[in-house]
């Protein structure tokens, strides 16, 4: 035990000395710290942001139907007739078959696409609409106002706004425009008995793949999409995007490692003399090495803490203004939403590997070179 205590005390004195010696070269260390924090901040922002988006997508898709059946004509998505829905009802394991009507409408006034949707319960009165919060903001529309769209036949279709959707579900509902079925068909000229796609509910998730195969057998011109597939695709896409943003940053990482190497190897005459004196008064190579590692460790720790804290604030406080255009997508009416903080140990570990390891590796050799300096070499 006494030996352990002695080792700890020794490390504490070394740490004390290191802190004092670092504060003596404040500007130099602050410069490096600033670059280091910037590096951690950039990488951490990308990581936090992509995982928050994945988290959000997962929450959204939890509500999605188990299988969506689309009809394909010449490789393109086409309207699906109601008879198709009938033939799907016979498949064992399917509880609910539901034709859905949805589409996009371009509004030249705000140069944005709205998502028009007939809610499944069809509780919107004909002639009225329920709209998303971002859409309401863009058009400056309130409850009771009237919005008009030019339909497929050139006539104007006025909609009185009955309600505005709550802000909480903004990511999904920002640009939503809920209308009645009759209005939807009139606006886009979709005949009765035709739907955009068909949603299936399957109570037992293990039957999903089998049902999908049966759908394909029953309707060879259709394309069944499983919710699990959508989830997988979103997950892969967000991972891929964040890695694509990070790849160009690897150049910056290399530059940072070179800077760290430079800083660690370009010992000033002052520092060399200091090391020489320390060795002359009895410090061993191992002590100098420990001191230098403490220096690097402290710097890394500070940079890691400040960098991740700043990135946290940037992503979850400010909704990542620096990254949003690249990572989110390209929609104009993008919701103004706050991401739910979703950070796990994997990201922090990955971040640590990407920032601290290169720093430690880059400074290893210069630090050793400084530590083995002979006192007579520098004090002569």
């Amino acid at each position, binding site marked *: 035990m006494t030996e352990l205590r002695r080792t700890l005390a020794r490390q504490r004195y070394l740490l004390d000395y290191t802190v004092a010696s670092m504060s003596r070269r404040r500007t130099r260390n602050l410069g490096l710290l600033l670059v280091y924090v910037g590096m951690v901040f950039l990488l951490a922002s*990308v*990581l936090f942001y*992509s995982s928050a988006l994945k988290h959000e997508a997962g929450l959204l898709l939890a509500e999605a139907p188990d299988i969506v059946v689309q009809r*394909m004509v010449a*490789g393109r998505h086409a309207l699906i007739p109601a008879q198709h829905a009938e033939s799907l009802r016979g498949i064992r394991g399917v509880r609910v078959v539901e034709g859905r009507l949805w589409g996009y409408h371009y509004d030249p006034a705000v140069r944005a696409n709205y998502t028009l949707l007939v809610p499944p319960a069809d509780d919107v009165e004909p002639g009225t609409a329920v709209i998303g919060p971002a859409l309401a903001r863009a058009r400056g529309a309130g409850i009771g106002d009237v919005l008009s769209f030019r339909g497929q036949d050139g006539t104007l279709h006025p909609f009185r706004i009955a309600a505005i959707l709550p802000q909480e579900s903004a990511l999904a509902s920002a640009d939503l425009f809920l209308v009645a079925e009759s209005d939807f068909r009139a606006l886009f000229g979709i005949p009765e008995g035709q739907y955009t796609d068909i949603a299936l509910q399957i109570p037992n998730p293990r039957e999903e*793949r089998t049902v*999908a*195969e049966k759908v*394909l057998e029953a309707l060879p011109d259709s*394309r*069944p*999409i499983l919710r699990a*597939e*959508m*989830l*997988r*695709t979103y*997950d*892969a*896409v967000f*991972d*891929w995007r*964040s*890695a*694509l943003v*990070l*790849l160009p940053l*690897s150049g910056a990482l290399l530059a940072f490692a070179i800077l760290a190497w430079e800083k660690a190897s370009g010992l000033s005459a002052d520092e060399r003399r200091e090391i020489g004196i320390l060795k002359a008064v009895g410090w061993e*190579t*191992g002590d100098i*090495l420990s001191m230098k*590692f403490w220096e690097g460790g402290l710097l890394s720790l500070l940079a890691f803490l400040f960098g991740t804290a700043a990135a946290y604030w940037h992503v979850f406080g400010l909704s990542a203004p620096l990254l949003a255009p690249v990572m989110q997508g390209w929609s104009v009416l993008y919701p103004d939403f706050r991401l739910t903080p979703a950070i*796990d*140990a*994997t*990201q922090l*570990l*990955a*971040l*640590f*590997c*990407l920032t601290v*390891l*290169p720093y*430690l*590796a880059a400074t*290893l*050799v210069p*630090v*050793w070179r400084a*530590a*083995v300096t002979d006192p007579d070499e520098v004090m002569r």
Partner: protein
Amino acid sequence: MMVQTPILALFMADLLGLLLLIPAGLFALQVLRHWDPSSGRAQQLRLEKRTPLVAAILGLVLLTQILALPLFVHTVDRMALQIVGAMCAVGTLNANFWGLPALLLRIGLFFLAAAWLLMHRMDKLAPDYPLIRAKYGLVLLILPLAAVTAGVQLAFFLQLDPDVITSCCGSLFSQGSESVAAHMAGLPALPTMFALYGTIGLALAAAGVYLRWRRALVPFGILATLSFPVAIAAIVAFLSLYVYEHPLHHCPFCLLQPDYGRIGYALYLPLFGATAIGLGLALSAAFARRQSLRDVLAAAAPPLVITAAAGLTLFAALAAWITSQSNLILIGY
């Protein structure tokens, strides 16, 4: 190929480790050929000056492995979402041939780096570098192992394709997309249980013998090292079943999930620690031909033996507790 940030981080960690280990390996060759403490030649002085650098490199490699091991497991676990049929890390690792070897190599690298550092510590305590040849021989083993680990991991991730929606996703169902085997076969429960408590019991007995009579350090080290594969087999064969209370779920990784109170960390940390110390002690003691090293070991080994024995005891106690409080009945009366 999956491009993901944690995968990039793993590659970089491996690459950095290799970049540092290659000069260390070259240096090891020089040491093995020219090391002669009695000579006062410039070359000998240069070699002596360079040993702290190699120690620092191995320290960094160990740190890398300590970080990379959980990162690898977590990443693989998360990727199960993107692979059809994979429920957790086992499914992803089974998605192609290289998954499990990559994990095992990584664990091996971790233990060798830890054992090297322990040997280095012992070596430094003695005045005449008694372990220098054994140490640098081990570096020559670690270097190719690190290279193979990096290569196998690269192969694993390169062959891993996420199953995303294709323009015609009928292909996903019809063209025989095989669902990966998400199961791990376990050994029969009762014999594995005997093996686990037997091995740990023997290791603890050896620890007792060493602490009382200062003998049998090598057998203790070997038994502590052996406890690792036995314990992993036990986790797969019965411990995980007791935790999940499910007779078929053999996964050793889901233990790390918050759903099970992250109990895996409480199991794995003492186990890895005890095994690393055991391996280091076994190697140090096996090469202790000189008196100086024996003196060093006599002074420095007992606390390490106590630590390793405590780790093994903790593991066994936790295993027994899990078995006793589980609602699953695996072994009939």
